[in-house]
């Protein structure tokens, strides 16, 4: 199972073993990671599961789809070059070791 490390806005680190095939958002919610609200449940309708990936993981995943890219313009916390919506990232071995920073606020 790929290991993911979440870093909260106050610097707390949580390492989780994520399930292949699930989304990063689903794994975060399942493991009680705070700050991933995901109000719409993963349908790219709310923009409240925003995260910052580490540069390397971001590049491994490739650029987000147009709809996700558009919605990232409207999220609450500042958009950064490695911003993603965690509901749109499927967990697989490529993501092993990814470091995911959670913004201070989703709304």
């Amino acid at each position, binding site marked *: 199972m790929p290991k993911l490390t979440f870093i909260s806005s106050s610097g707390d680190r949580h390492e989780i073993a994520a399930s292949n095939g699930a989304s990063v958002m689903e794994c975060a919610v399942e493991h009680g990671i705070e700050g991933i609200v995901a*109000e*719409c449940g993963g*349908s790219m*309708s*709310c923009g409240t599961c925003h995260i910052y990936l580490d540069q390397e993981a971001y590049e491994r995943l490739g650029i987000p789809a147009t709809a996700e890219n*558009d919605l990232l313009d*409207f*999220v*609450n916390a500042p958009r950064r070059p490695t911003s993603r919506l965690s509901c749109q990232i499927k967990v697989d071995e490529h993501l092993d070791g990814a470091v995911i920073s959670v913004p201070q606020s989703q*709304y």
Partner: protein
Amino acid sequence: MTSTTILSKIPAGCPMHQAGERFQPFEHKGMTDFYASVRPEVPIFYAPSIDCWVVTRREDALAVLRDHERFSASNATAPIVPWPEEMHQFLRDQHFTNESVQVACDPPRHTRGRNAAMTFLNMKKFQNYEADVRALARSYINEISNSGKDIVDLVESFTYEYPAKVAFLLLGEKQLDARKLKQWADLRIKLIFGTLTHEQQMEAARDLADFWHFASALVEQRKKKPGDDYPSALLAARAGDDSILTENEVKSLVFGLLLAAHETTTNAAGNLLFELLKRPITWQAIVEDQSLIPNAVEEGLRYATSTIAWRRRAKVDVEIAGVQLPRGSQILLSLTSANRDEKQFADGEIFDIGRSNARSHIAFGNGIHHCLGAPLARMELRILLEELTTAFPKMRLEDEESISFLPTLSFRGPDRLPVRLNR
């Protein structure tokens, strides 16, 4: 299969049958008690009077809302009492060409509407309206203060119009008649979710046509002179390309906003104030500490959900909570019941503004149809409470027994909220 046959197939002694017989879909009084009594044993039951399978638990409601592949939203706003042909003909004659673009349609059609709407209806954009919304709230406070009355109806003097005026901000029109819009919207709600007679339907149709002409005219104006507003943003997203969005779809989206942007917020505001004012200690708590307000808003949305139930239709044979339903079955998701489900909310029947997971309610739906206006509604409700607690901290509910709720299938809100201001 007819509705009577479906019910006759469920054994009369079984709790599911009894729930179906006891359920009164249009009666708000006693509704939460009814759901609390059936939810532990009956996750789903058939309601013959509306030909719907009613889902009572949160996890099942969420599963349906998130599964747009198997559950269609096409019946979400279908009239409970079918419109007569005479009415359809009248609307055709009036060039009423409204079409389902968002709330009552499925992908890929839904996706085009949402992508365009989202360019304007989003958190970032709404934040720009905070000062205007607060100014609006204060204008109602000032009117109440200047009236010299000690007893006022908060629905009449504040929450009825306030969200409609916010909708006008989004439309870029400040000088519109909020009462007219509210009357149109009330009629439209009754036409869809109520039980009108033929005469009432025909009368309402005339207003519906007016309502549509108003939305169409607004879009036509913005074509000539665009502004920083919702119709202009839709036209910009369309960029003259019917493959992105047609002009009629733009008009339909604006027509939709004229209802969606205020009706449920008026109800949510009334419900929230009603629950808070019924509990003077809780009201006092938010007066003394306004930082409690955002979570109080969430608890209000959870406990006194204004969109009480929402419909879906099975696109294929499905199973919900162990019950097999054939393709075409209509499903009524009780958001009211889901939002009090003890599996998610400990002591869900208790109104607790300190509840840590209050925000996990599904008052704004879930999945691809999750309400785009949710951040705006939350802002309006927060500002409403901030301003009222500041202006009238000693306010108390008066004549609670006189408050009633309009009998519709999907919406709930008090018709009046008389309060003594105690200035």
